């Protein structure tokens, strides 16, 4: 395999508080290759967005990267100064946020926002930047891009606005795009349009995409590989067919079972008892053990095994299906 575009190694994000150090992301490792879409799923508070923000260097203080390394195309980027990071942000890493209204400046026409980004990163002339902006809008499927380039964000519908945000993320031709819940605020039919657009751009440009979402259906249809997060740790990582079709981690299994899609025809939905623990009150051992139906004494004492490489599937002492499948888990 060629060198991955993004490589995250043992990433720990920590927040110092009066009650001690909290770790919203704790020892997460994964790679994303060229042209690959990695889906990151989990419930709110599992640390999915935090992981994305750490990669692009958008952690809000006091949150900070405690340990671990992040490599982008072989260059380490987690220890860069703010000034150096600016060259990467936007140019090499594009970001698409959940809410298309708040991620655009309401006071500037969309054309100005696009040309600003293009000139900042590519250093081209005004007219060239303008042409590129039109081409970028054209590519994401905005009709009559030439005329609409002077429009303000409020003149677009939600779906069109999200297309503008995607154009903005892609206009400097980044090698990695982080899409944080890009379709959560949109209707089903518009969601299908945006997902198809992301997939097409990923294929045509060979970008690596990190797709953060809580919608299993979107993941199943879009991602090549899935990372399931629970309480700041990776619970399971693997090809989408295998993780969704035959989950190994009891949490993934419960999560898939609780979607109404999976319980077709059944009167009651499968439910995972309890709630995700708060960060300050993580149980000892595996964080999932109080809710896990297969808990054994070992789970309560030893912290769950960490996924060391990208071959390991589930971070569980007793993964489902094949008990001997502990390859890659240390």
């Amino acid at each position, binding site marked *: 395999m060629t060198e991955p575009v993004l490589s995250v190694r043992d990433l720990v994000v920590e927040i110092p508080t009066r009650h001690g150090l909290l770790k919203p992301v704790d020892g997460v490792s994964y790679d994303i290759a060229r042209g690959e879409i990695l889906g990151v799923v989990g419930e709110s508070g599992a640390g999915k967005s935090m992981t994305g923000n750490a990669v692009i260097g958008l952690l809000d203080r006091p949150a900070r990267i405690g340990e671990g390394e992040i490599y982008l195309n072989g260059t380490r980027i987690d220890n860069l100064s703010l000034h150096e990071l600016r060259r990467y942000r936007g140019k090499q890493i594009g970001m698409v946020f959940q809410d298309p209204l708040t991620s655009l400046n309401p006071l500037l026409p969309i054309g100005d926002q696009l040309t600003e980004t293009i000139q900042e990163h590519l250093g081209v002339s005004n007219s060239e930047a303008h042409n590129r902006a039109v081409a970028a809008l054209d590519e994401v499927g905005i009709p009559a891009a030439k005329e609409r380039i002077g429009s303000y964000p409020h003149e677009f519908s939600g779906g069109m606005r999200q297309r503008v945000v995607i154009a903005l993320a892609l206009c400097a031709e980044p090698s990695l795009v982080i899409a944080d819940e890009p379709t959560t605020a949109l*209707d089903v039919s518009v969601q299908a349009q945006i997902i198809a657009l992301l997939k097409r751009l990923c294929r045509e440009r060979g970008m690596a995409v990190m797709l953060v979402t809580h919608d299993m259906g979107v993941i199943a249809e879009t991602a090549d590989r899935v990372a399931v997060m629970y309480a700041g740790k990776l619970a399971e990582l693997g090809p989408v067919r295998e993780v969704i079709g035959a989950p190994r981690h009891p949490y993934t299994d419960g*999560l898939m079972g609780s979607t109404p899609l999976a319980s077709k025809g059944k009167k*009651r939905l499968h439910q995972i008892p309890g709630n995700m623990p708060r960060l300050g009150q993580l149980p000892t051992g595996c964080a999932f053990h109080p809710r896990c139906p297969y808990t054994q004494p070992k789970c309560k004492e030893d912290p769950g095994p960490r996924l060391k490489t990208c071959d390991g599937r589930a971070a569980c002492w007793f993964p489902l299906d094949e008990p001997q499948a502990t390859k890659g888990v240390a």
Partner: protein
Amino acid sequence: MAVIVSVKNLTRVFDVSKPWLNRVLERLPKRKLTAVSDVSFEIEENTVYALVGESGSGKSTIGKMIVGLLPPSEGTVEIEGVNLATETDADTIERVRSDIQMIFQDPYASLNPRWKVGDIIEEPAVANGDDTDGLAEKLLEQVGLSASDVRKFPHEFSGGQRQRICVARALASEPNLIVCDEPTSALDVSVQAQVLNLMSDLKDSFGLTYLFISHDLTVIQHMADRIGVLYLGRLVEEAAPADLFGVPQHPYTQMLLEAAPRMDGFGREVEPPEGEIPDPINPPTGCAFHPRCPLAIDRCSKERPQLEVKSNARVACFRAGERAI
């Protein structure tokens, strides 16, 4: 089975004109937005009727008109045979009103942060003048929380627990009908499963009737006994879940089902639907869906199809039952 809610030709028009002075100075006409037009359906006792549609389809407006938070512009809502808008007998109004409750989408915004949970839950019963002794404790246990939670404040609970508190509050006045407006949209899947299971259990044990409003087809499929699909304020199809998901008749329903992501759709290439919901202030002539419809014929842009009975469903389409794909 007895019909508990009967909605006839319900229409709601909102005035979205600019202020009076602007209209005079800029010589603008009044602008009307028809959020709901000519919707009729019935809900039978102890069933779940679901309204599904994209944003702007008028599903929440219908919910609000049924509970009486908004007056209809035209048409009638009858609950247990009583039209609350025209009924004059105060006792009847009171009796019917206490039979209706509502659960809202956002459990963070729908609980007063300065009230204790016990007071929040008892409020509907207090308003009815009922006995509230031990009521909050009993309800909290019924929705899966602990009786000692009555003294806590809403901020001490997670989203799913808050939605349980909302359910407990809705049960306090012993209603027959609960209108649920996107009750699980703000929740995670595992929490959503807990709340949906709770709602099904309560329906069976209290004999409740739900009007379930959601944009999530999978949740609707799981919960509903009868589904109404809305597009731009009009009911385009109404059927039982098995029929609607098995053989969708209306091209809009077909498009919606096709576009919804599937858990087993690995690498599925969806041909995404064209266009977006049109502007409700200037809706298209004829069938509102015709500019996006793959089956549209000339007639669709001139004439509006009426809701007609087709096998087990009601469909508003000239080419109902045909498939584009």
